[in-house]
């Protein structure tokens, strides 16, 4: 009786061992081919933007996705998804919490992703993501309506000096980069304006088209069509623009204040395999060499910026400290 039971247990154990062995073999077979060539995505890759279609961070990931598909850089399909709402928190949570450890999700990372969590005291910071690479820097420009009386930056500043708080800047929710640049400019000039928050840069653009606000600060790619169509006039830029060389920078017009690096980068959720991160860093490195990428940079007045992996983590750490200080300086954070 007892022997039989022992046998039974042995048999059961044997079966268990066999099962484990089989699983291990299967697992190795399954891992084998892919690990031989390093990690590769096996499912469609989804790239997420926290802002709606047509914004800088959105066009950026669409360009990446196109380049990868056209050059067959990646064995699977990539898709772009816009998850808007709750000041980017929905998108951040979607990547950092819901898809934690999933290497088939990537996230378009822009400065507001760093700053809004600070202002909102969120538990998600840039440390919730694996930094892959920073790819480009955008140039924010200050735009007024073409029929606006303000022809230069000093026109605008002097108007704000005469009528405190009556000049209005429109843009996305308060604390985003456009609002910070505006605040720093006006603090530097010693004047006060009013900031009108809209659902996003797009709605602010419409408000400026209807002359309901005085100016907006947006990236070139978001307002280029309106400048070309003669609706808007650029009166200052944070840097020299290739496509509009006549535009003078803030500095050239006598307003020299520390501006913000308006980077465009890509991150993945924390917890993905190191090989997967390495794969994407390499993929982005290859992307940089393509002619499509160069023409994207040129077309949108973007400066090349390549900081990847650990260097990007260090960069984000420094930027976070900078934002903390800046938010305190301009009174957004106590």
């Amino acid at each position, binding site marked *: 009786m007892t022997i039989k039971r022992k046998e039974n247990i042995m048999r059961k154990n044997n079966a268990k061992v066999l099962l484990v062995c089989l699983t291990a073999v299967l697992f190795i077979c399954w891992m084998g081919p892919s690990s031989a060539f390093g990690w590769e995505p096996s499912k469609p890759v989804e790239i997420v933007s926290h802002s709606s279609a*047509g914004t800088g961070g959105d066009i950026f990931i669409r360009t990446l996705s196109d380049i990868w598909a056209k050059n067959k850089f990646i064995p699977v399909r990539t898709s772009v998804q816009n998850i808007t709402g709750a000041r980017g928190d929905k998108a951040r949570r979607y990547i950092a919490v819901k898809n934690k450890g999933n290497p088939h999700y990537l996230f378009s990372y822009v400065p507001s992703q760093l700053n809004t969590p600070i202002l909102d005291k969120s538990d998600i910071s840039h440390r919730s993501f694996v930094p892959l690479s920073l790819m480009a820097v955008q140039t924010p420009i200050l735009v007024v309506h073409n029929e606006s009386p303000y022809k230069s930056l000093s026109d605008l500043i002097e108007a704000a000096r005469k009528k405190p708080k009556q000049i209005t800047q429109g843009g996305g929710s308060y*604390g985003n980069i456009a609002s910070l640049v505006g605040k720093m400019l006006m603090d530097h000039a010693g004047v006060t304006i009013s*900031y009108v928050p809209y659902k996003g840069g797009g709605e602010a653009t419409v408000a400026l088209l*209807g002359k309901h606000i005085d100016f907006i600060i947006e990236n070139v790619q978001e307002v280029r069509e*309106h400048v070309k169509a003669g609706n808007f006039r650029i009166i200052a830029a944070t840097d020299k623009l290739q496509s509009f060389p006549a535009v003078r920078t803030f500095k050239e017009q006598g307003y020299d204040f520390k501006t913000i690096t308006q980077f465009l980068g890509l991150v993945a959720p924390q917890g993905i395999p190191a090989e997967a991160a390495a794969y994407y860093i390499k993929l982005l490195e290859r992307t940089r060499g393509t002619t499509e990428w160069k023409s994207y940079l040129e077309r949108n007045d973007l400066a090349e910026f390549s900081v990847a992996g650990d260097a990007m983590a260090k960069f984000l750490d420094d930027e976070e400290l900078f934002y903390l200080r800046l938010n305190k300086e301009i009174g957004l954070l106590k």
Partner: protein
Amino acid sequence: MLGEVIHNLGVGFAVALLPENILYAFVGSFLGTIVGILPGLGPAGAMAMILPAVFTLHPASAIIMLASAYAGAMYGGSTTSILLNVPGENASVVTCLDGYQMALQGRAGPALCIAAIGSFIAGTMGIAGLMLFGPIISKAALSFGSPEYFALMVFALSAVASLSGDTIVKGLLAMTLGLMVATVGTDMTGVRRYCFNLPDLLDGVEFFAVTIGLFAISEVIITTAEIKSGLRKTVIKHKIFISFKEFLYSSGAIIRGSIIGFSVGVLPGAGAGVASFLAYSFETQISRHPEKFGKGEIKGVAAPESANNAASAGALIPMLTLGVPGSGTTAIMLAALMGLNVNPGPLLFSSRPDVVWGLIAAMYLGNIILLILNLPLVGIFVRILYLPLKYILPLIMILAVLGVYSANMAVLDLVFLCLFGLLGYYMRRNGYPIAPVILGIVLGGQMEVALRQTMIMSQGQPFFVFERPIVIFFLVLTLISIFLPLILKHFTKTQIEYDEA
């Protein structure tokens, strides 16, 4: 100018009428209709679903398929509203009021028919408006700033009068509840209100959970109670198609609904939901028998269904000419166009006429296909009502839970679905109208943002709005729509007294 339009349209149709493109239009319309019928998945869901497939097609075919799916989803939205009291999307909430009553009276067929015909007429009129006046209208819409939006929302709130019937106080209470629900979430400055640290609440209470809870779940409870107590009347079998007389009777409502819908739709900050409420309330106000509304008046189906289709056509105007999406649906359309390397914006009409005219031709084509597709479906859908209730009620529950869960994949939404279902039951049992709750939620968020923007612009001076003619126009309209029914009521009352005497 007209010659140019005809020429361009000819070019557009030459592309749209290629056999494979007709096929894509058919597939798009069909998928759009099916997805639109499922509650929770509105036009935005339909388009998001076919988006990946679309990118493998030729750009013209892709746009044709998307446009047809867009139109199709707007058609489908009314089906469950009418048959089961489950609104398919927020623009079809008002359709429930009279549509479901018609279904209970055995007139589901005519209700579905008028929704399809109204959608067809409104969709076609909307596209004609887009084609003829697109760029001009988009300029006019720009004169709408935050104060104008606020005034428009105030006017839209006055629709509460026509949604409440005789119980205006209860209607106001219900609307206030809606406005309160709308305050939940992250506000425009980043402050979190009533979120209780729940990430699922950061963007507010899910609209569908409230709507489907209030309408569908409460309906299931009430019906069950009626079966228990033997009060439930069986649905009378009735004719399937609409009579010409009924069509003529509601044609005015279709035309008015289309015009209101299109005008509201072109404003990037309003949307089809607001349009359908306004169209419905306008119909009740000009009707000689306002008391019939809410009790199965066919105009109460025709007006909002026309309005939401015309609005969705109108919403394409800011998207195409300004590059700014006015709604979740047009945001996906915009993303799709950008994925096809088309950049909507002020230069689109001149730089990519092939895309614009292809889209316009596709919308015409889609509308015709949809009418052909939808009218025979009426006969099938109506039979759902002949099913025994023991099958219908679980079907409603399944649709409700699936629809709400599919919106965000959040369990919390299901909790809200149940809570609002119970609340809806309580309200209906005690004579509170439920549509004003939805009105409050639809308008509350946008109205608050517009008011706060206005206050920032004017630095807290409320009276500067009176310098703006559009604001005054809407405020006057609001006053008229509040007080005119009261005056008329008084007038008719004295008339009756006179007659009696």
